């Protein structure tokens, strides 16, 4: 064949941080605080809802309404993001991506023929909390050109855990309105905020509903990442384009899982704001785990940046000096060392940055604390490590 075999849209998007580190984890079998999924079960009410759906009549196992059982449902937030990009991003469009970004945003924009333009969150003087990492309004504004189509934000943010405040979202909204941009807001961790931080939906700000696509995830909401049910919510005129993508890509999503998630939401709606609500219980549980892990990290000289929301905690590794200069970024080398020497798996944070900015962020690694027994094992490793450091300094 004289033409290239694979389509140009697949060029340069084949490498993936998960593939690399999942393989390492499979090889060394470390205690895995790398990939972001719980090691505990979804709540009993949602598992029961799933089993009930499964044992329901034949219709539970056949196609349901294409656009969701309702509302507009996708195969996880991942597919919702993909559909949003495919629906509104054209060749030559620019899409502003706030860094650090969940790594799939870049290849999704590229696959749609767009150009990602990056604007990093930067730590202000104090970097104890994810709230101290901020966007510069001037820097953001300077990145907007006549080709800019949309801005992608993630709040709460993965990997940083930042929960954007109303005034920060307002700054972004003002620019969206001024320059007539769309906003794709990935809010999969919307129910997981700590220390009283409030999740604010940018779509609820004035002038934003009609230009925002908000993405959600049953997997993160109900600790059932393996169900791959997510959704996109937005105004009718934007959603119709996403529906067109949907009907020409997967057309339907699994019925039983949607049914179970629907029941889960019915239950939560009834219990909203009460102590029995999973949307209260899960963040309360995770807040404790976050604290535990942060203390352990501090004890070995890793400096945690306390996340206001989400599944993850970033830690500054710069106190571990590595004089060797290598081709690979420092955090990548550190993560590999941690897997091989300490049996502990994490994810390097520069994987969530563009090549333009990644060098500034090579001193951070990401831990997932939505774990039960794995967290106990990780704590043991970190305690032992801390002990070794104390012994060697004596």
């Amino acid at each position, binding site marked *: 064949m004289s033409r290239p075999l694979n389509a140009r849209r*697949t060029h340069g998007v084949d490498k993936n941080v998960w593939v690399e580190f999942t393989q390492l984890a499979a090889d060394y079998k470390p205690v895995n605080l790398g990939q972001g999924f719980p090691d505990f079960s979804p709540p009993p009410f949602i*598992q029961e809802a799933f089993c009930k759906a*499964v044992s329901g009549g*034949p219709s539970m196992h056949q196609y349901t309404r294409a656009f969701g059982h309702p509302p507009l449902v996708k195969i*996880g937030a991942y597919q919702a993001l993909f559909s949003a990009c495919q629906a509104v991003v054209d060749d030559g469009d620019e899409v502003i991506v706030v860094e650090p970004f969940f790594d799939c945003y870049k290849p999704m924009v590229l696959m749609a023929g767009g150009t990602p333009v990056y604007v990093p969150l930067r730590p202000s003087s104090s970097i104890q909390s994810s709230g101290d990492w901020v966007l510069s309004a001037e820097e953001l504004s300077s990145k907007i050109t006549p080709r800019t189509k949309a801005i992608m934000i993630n709040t709460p943010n993965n990997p940083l855990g930042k929960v954007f405040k109303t005034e920060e979202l307002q700054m972004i909204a003002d620019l969206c309105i001024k320059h007539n941009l769309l906003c794709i807001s990935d809010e999969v961790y919307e129910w997981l905020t700590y220390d009283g931080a409030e999740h604010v939906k940018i779509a609820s700000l004035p002038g934003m509903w009609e230009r925002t696509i908000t993405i959600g995830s049953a997997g993160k909401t109900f600790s059932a990442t393996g169900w791959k049910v997510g959704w996109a919510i937005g105004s009718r*005129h934007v959603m119709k384009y996403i529906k067109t993508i949907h009907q020409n890509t*997967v057309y339907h999503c699994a019925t039983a899982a949607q049914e179970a998630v629907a029941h889960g939401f019915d239950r939560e709606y009834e219990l909203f704001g009460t102590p029995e609500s999973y949307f209260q219980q899960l963040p309360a549980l995770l807040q404790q785990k976050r604290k535990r892990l942060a203390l352990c990290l501090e004890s070995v000289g890793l400096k945690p940046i306390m996340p206001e929301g989400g599944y993850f905690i970033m830690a500054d590794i710069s106190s571990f000096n590595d004089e060797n200069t290598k081709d690979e970024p420092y955090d990548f080398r550190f993560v590999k060392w941690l897997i091989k020497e300490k049996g502990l798996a994490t994810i390097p944070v520069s994987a969530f940055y563009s090549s333009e900015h990644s060098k500034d962020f090579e001193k951070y690694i990401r831990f997932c604390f939505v774990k039960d027994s794995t967290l106990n094992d990780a704590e043991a490793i970190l305690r032992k490590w801390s002990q070794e450091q104390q012994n060697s300094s004596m």
Partner: protein
Amino acid sequence: MNTAQLLSCTRLAFQSLNVICKRSFWVSQCMMASRHTNAKRIEGLDKNVWVAFTSVAADPSIVNLGQGYPDIPPPSYIKEGLAKAASVDKMNQYTRGFGHPSLVKALSQVYGKVYGRPIDPLNEILVTVGGYGSLFSTIQALVEEGDEVIIIEPFFDCYVPMVRMAGAKPVLIPLRCSKKQFITSADWKLDPDELSSKFNSKTKAIIINNPNNPLGKVFTRDELQTIANLCIEHDVLCFSDEVYEWITYKGHQHIKIATLPEMWDRTITISSAGKTFSVTGWKLGWSIGPEHLVKHLQTVMQNTLYTCATPLQEAVAQGLLLNFDLMGQPECYFTSLADELQEKRDRLANIVQAAGMTPVIPEGGYFMLVDVTSLNQDLSHMVEDESYDYKFVKWMIKEKKLAAIPVTAFVGDDSKKHFEKYIRLCFIKVIKYSISSISVFCGEENRNLLFFCFFWGFFCHQQQDSTLEAAGNILKNWKI
């Protein structure tokens, strides 16, 4: 200012604000409309026959022989397998992106036997969201602007929009039938010279669907060889949609084009758990092919969905292993489903014939084309600019409460005139007292045949309320 005045002012202020808001909303909508239209890749792809007809047929008073999904129950072990999988903690979390390990191993076992060659579970298989998702990742991975893709008519309707979304040009070629009576799907054939003329230097791939939806054609070895020869001669890929691979009727054998000489290296074969185990709502499928092709599908997968649902994959794996052990035996679902459907096919064909319509007996798959010409139904009162079959189906849904799918949805514009007297009926439906239902179309002289079939059906199937029964009732009362 007193309270009343304050309230009045406030009310006025809100009214003004309301007007201002509405006005600026309208202005902003105009601006939005001009700037924020759809990406070019979906231009003209918004219409879809399923979207058009599924909502209409969803009315519970309509008997739906339209959309292709079973109302027979799936095997109990497959549902039990899903409940069991969901009760294991880690089965509710992410699994391997390109396919859950136990599923790809099971697929490797089953298809290794079918293909007669070892299949690498990690590099030659990709698990996707249904056959639909499999088609999408194949086309996105391997087709782009400037390419041409040959599609055989009638085709499952998503092929054309998917090829267009990838920026390529669909090139259509129809199956043609020369027989006038006692037609089966085998009588619909490709003209080899016409097929050859469609290949050129821009041709990237040909999509075949075997067994074919909507026609039910099961391609013979010779027919597949003709296609294969052209693929090899012109160095073209083959995307073979084989979701109905296990559903072939007596006397017909499903052959995988990938097993013909020199075809493995250039073929992606697409399959469906939904069609294999009668669980269309699970939306799981897989692509099988050589590593140098599958790796590009995997790239698409990791940037679109990343992974499929874990408990579903685990349950399908268990279902495959169970049936692998039974392969070749009558209890194997891969053969027993086809046996069950053959009876339904034959029964539906008899009813339809007795009612004065002409069925095209399918050699495989879930569907039957039915020629409605002889009914001479006058639809001149329907003034929409649509082909006859669209009008007929809409009329039939409204007047007779029976849903089918118009067959011109499965062909290009140039072929519409050859297909507009056909409707598609799905027969993977529960039968009980089926015959009386469809007898409405027929005259008195055929009623005896129908009542014979009725009693035969009654003794054969002791099941619950049936779609085919209801359809039969409608047809029986057609002329009343």
